[in-house]
């Protein structure tokens, strides 16, 4: 075996329970005979270096009943990726998607499908692995056919398959995959396979029902927070209010130790912890601790300044001077601005955001008798967590077994961010108490330690010609992006995650300069669904309407005109116009007597194209969003129902951020510690969502995030059309609209 990672079968063997294997077929555990390469072949593969996505045995286990266990390189968090994997692999393997049981794959070189790395994010899972997964399914099918050919002593070319069976039509014989699995496993993986013609697809491209829905509707799905291991104790933590503080003194340690169920009290980097017989007892005790905090001596901890406030940071970004590092240039923007008939200028900002995924973070750590560390934790990047956990435990990564359960929402929450997850605490506590420990963060601790969508400011300046058409656009995104923070930033290169959504727009404006002015962010920043697009498309598309208004153009017509060179975008914009019953900006009177208006926006996130229209009215000072129409072109598709669900979900999150969400820091501390002070979209603010999927045939784009970025600008543009008030700062609810027309 490869020394650098635990093979899946071994990791599972060490499991006292198999949370993600509780399956749609149930009760077959004891009979499972996997398709597994013999030891010798494993060693050879390791020696030869493993090419990710090729070793059938690492991904597929065909069981005696012909159900298929698939180890997914990508983690399910509601985006439907497990079902997509079953559709794609099943299509080529010739197994119905409903016959799959899917679990998150353990760390290992087989699963590094994103340029030698692996994570679930960037709306990449399906589009980046589509071909590999098809070949994997086809390879396994070919091995099963070869095994049948050998058994029946007939040429493999005379065989065919139907779902779950190999057939020899000439003799009328057939064998279930399950009966052939063992023999197939001993065969080499074919180097060449032929793939199904897309015209013959039965499951790819269809609204195949999701595999996980019934379990989720009946409470059977187990998330990290639900797991339990033999002999485990529970821990809760209280963090220092700011990063960079360590516990110095505890005033009432003896009293707290006497509280019910309390077993021990611990000082950890940046936190105190209580280990107890139940989490509630641990929590109650840890929150009773009276702790004095002092500056951490550790140089590796990022320090949150005691005087930090988000408002001061916003002001500092707005005051930052300089042209920034160009991310996109065309023509001569300076000359064109000088010669312009009209110049339009505006500065926009968007706040820090919390992820607010409904499952609070947790982690279980257990040191096994063989010296290995076993971990269960929500994550979207197993190898990265494995490597970091190994460092914390003082082990090599191959001594860390990591389980990646399905996620109770993620939206970018579960990447590896400094100090933003409890596994470090679980490891230290398990070591200290000599037993498995499960740490859960209360919602309040989660709000304290979440990695935030960065706060950002964008400055725009545009020049219009005599006809009111934009000819020059200059934009600077001010702040720091999460890619630069966590993966390094070149001094002379703009961070894509800071400018995407301002750069990369499809409009034919001949003179352009889009830049990033980097300013370090004192907070722990992270990826938040649609990353830079989550705010940058709001900045750009709203400013676009300002250009249109200044040039006395209709914003929809001006977009169409500036998309003249791009049939794909033009088609999409027209599609959303049609879907909404024909573009009309308003204000107009609706059937219920309310005055309403519409706004439009376009976005090009994660390889997909999206056009969005929103219709709003005002109720008192509150913005009511009635309908959102979304036309999305992901190039080609795997599951239309999942796409529609993802658009619904992205609209909800986009609207939530546009209307309500804002993490406010004062004195180095976030003001909101729960949903009561950080409101997220409630059910009665959810608009109707209408989705049209346009398949242009372009390379496959992402699905999880693209529906989001168009929503804030479409809503803000609609509000401006309704009230005449241009809101340049999110969330919109900060602006008092009481008494406005509407």
């Amino acid at each position, binding site marked *: 075996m490869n020394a650098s990672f635990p093979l899946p079968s071994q990791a599972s063997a060490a499991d006292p329970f198999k949370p993600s294997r509780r399956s749609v077929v149930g009760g077959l555990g004891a009979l499972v005979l996997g398709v597994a390469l013999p030891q010798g072949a494993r060693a050879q593969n390791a020696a030869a270096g493993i090419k990710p996505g090729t070793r059938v045995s690492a991904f597929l286990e065909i069981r005696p009943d012909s159900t298929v266990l698939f180890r997914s390189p990508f983690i399910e*968090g509601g985006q439907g990726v497990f079902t997509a994997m079953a559709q794609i692999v099943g299509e080529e393997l010739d197994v119905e998607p409903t016959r799959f049981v899917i679990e998150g794959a353990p760390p290992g070189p087989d699963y590094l499908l994103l340029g030698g790395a692996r994570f679930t994010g960037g709306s990449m899972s399906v589009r980046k692995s589509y071909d590999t997964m098809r070949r994997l399914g086809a390879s396994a099918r070919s091995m099963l056919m070869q095994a049948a050919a050998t058994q029946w002593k007939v040429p493999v070319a005379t065989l065919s398959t139907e779902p779950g069976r190999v057939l020899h039509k000439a003799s009328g014989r057939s064998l279930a995959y399950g009966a052939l699995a063992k023999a197939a496993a001993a065969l080499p993986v074919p180097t060449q396979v032929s793939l199904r013609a897309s015209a013959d697809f039965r499951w790819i491209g269809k609204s195949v029902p999701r595999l996980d829905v019934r379990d989720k509707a009946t409470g059977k799905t187990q998330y990290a927070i639900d797991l339990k291991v033999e002999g485990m104790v529970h821990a809760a933590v209280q963090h220092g209010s700011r990063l960079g503080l360590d516990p110095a003194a505890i005033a009432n340690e003896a009293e707290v130790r006497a509280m019910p169920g309390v077993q021990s009290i611990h000082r950890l980097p940046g936190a105190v912890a209580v280990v107890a017989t139940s989490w509630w007892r641990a929590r109650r005790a840890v929150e009773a601790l009276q702790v004095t905090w002092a500056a951490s001596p550790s140089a590796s901890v990022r320090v949150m300044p005691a005087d930090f406030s988000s408002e001061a940071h916003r002001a500092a970004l707005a005051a930052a001077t300089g042209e920034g590092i160009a991310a996109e240039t065309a023509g001569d923007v300076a000359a064109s601005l000088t010669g312009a008939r009209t110049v339009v200028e505006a500065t926009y900002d968007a706040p820090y955001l919390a992820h607010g995924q*409904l499952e609070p973070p947790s982690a279980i750590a257990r040191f096994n008798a063989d010296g290995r560390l076993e971990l269960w934790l929500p994550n979207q990047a197993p190898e990265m967590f494995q490597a970091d956990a190994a460092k914390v435990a003082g082990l090599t990564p191959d001594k860390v077994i990591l389980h990646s359960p399905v996620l*109770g929402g993620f939206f970018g929450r579960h990447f590896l961010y400094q100090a933003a997850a409890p596994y470090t605490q679980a490891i230290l506590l398990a070591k200290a108490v000599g037993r498995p420990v499960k740490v859960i963060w209360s*919602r309040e601790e989660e709000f304290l330690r979440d990695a935030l969508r960065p706060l950002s400011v964008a400055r725009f300046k545009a020049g219009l010609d005599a006809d009111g058409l934009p000819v020059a656009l200059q934009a600077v995104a001010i702040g720091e992006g999460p890619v630069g923070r966590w993966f390094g930033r070149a001094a002379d290169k703009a961070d894509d995650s800071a400018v995407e959504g301002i750069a990369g727009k499809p409009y034919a404006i001949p003179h352009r300069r889009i830049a990033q002015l980097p300013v370090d962010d004192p907070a722990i920043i992270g990826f938040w669904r649609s990353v830079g697009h989550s705010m940058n498309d709001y900045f750009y598309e709203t400013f676009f309407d300002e250009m249109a208004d200044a040039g006395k153009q209709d914003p929809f017509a001006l977009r169409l005109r500036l998309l003249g060179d791009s049939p794909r975008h033009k088609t999409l914009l027209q599609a959303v116009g049609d879907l909404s019953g024909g573009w009309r900006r308003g204000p107009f009177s609706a059937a219920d007597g309310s005055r309403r208006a519409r706004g439009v926006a376009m976005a090009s996130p994660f390889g997909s194209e999206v056009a969005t229209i929103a219709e709003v009215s005002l109720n008192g000072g509150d913005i009511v969003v009635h309908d959102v129409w979304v036309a999305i072109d992901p190039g080609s598709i795997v599951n239309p129902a999942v796409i529609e669900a993802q658009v619904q979900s992205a609209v909800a999150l986009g609207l939530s951020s546009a209307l309500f969400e804002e993490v406010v820091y004062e004195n180095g501390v976030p003001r909101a510690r*729960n949903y*009561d002070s950080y409101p997220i979209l409630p*059910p009665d603010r959810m608009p109707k969502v209408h989705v049209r999927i346009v398949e242009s045939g372009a390379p496959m784009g992402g699905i999880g995030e693209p529906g989001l970025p168009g929503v804030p600008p479409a809503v803000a543009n609609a509000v401006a059309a309704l009230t005449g008030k241009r809101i340049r700062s999110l969330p919109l609810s900060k602006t008092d609209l009481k008494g406005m027309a509407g």
Partner: protein
Amino acid sequence: MELTINGTKHRVDVEPDTPLLWVLRDELGLTGTKYGCGVAQCGACTVMIDGQATRSCVTPVESVTGAAITTIEAVEADPVGRKVVEAWVAHQVPQCGYCQSGQVMAATALLKQMPQPSDADISGAMLNLCRCGTYNAIAAAVRDAARS
């Protein structure tokens, strides 16, 4: 302390003010009921107490010793609950799924009390948060379950 959960009596030895949620999850292993906020904001912890949708994270266990407690684990034992689950599956409601135990319990409690709710009744009763934004599918599933 004695509790009646899903028709079965359980003895638990906990502090009387422990929230029912943590008794269910940690003492009895009934992890279908979820912890989301702990302060009656999200509804992930919704169970039925004598048929009423109740947020178990703020329900002291001592207050429900004589009551009939129903959790998501028993939802399909109830004919209305079964209808709700089928509607949830038909509408493919869950995404991450974490809020859905609470949503299903809230819907079941609503339809048990009011078999034919109006849209206003539905929005008045279905108040639980869903960060995945499954609200439209939830409303459609509740309407459907009421019809079936």
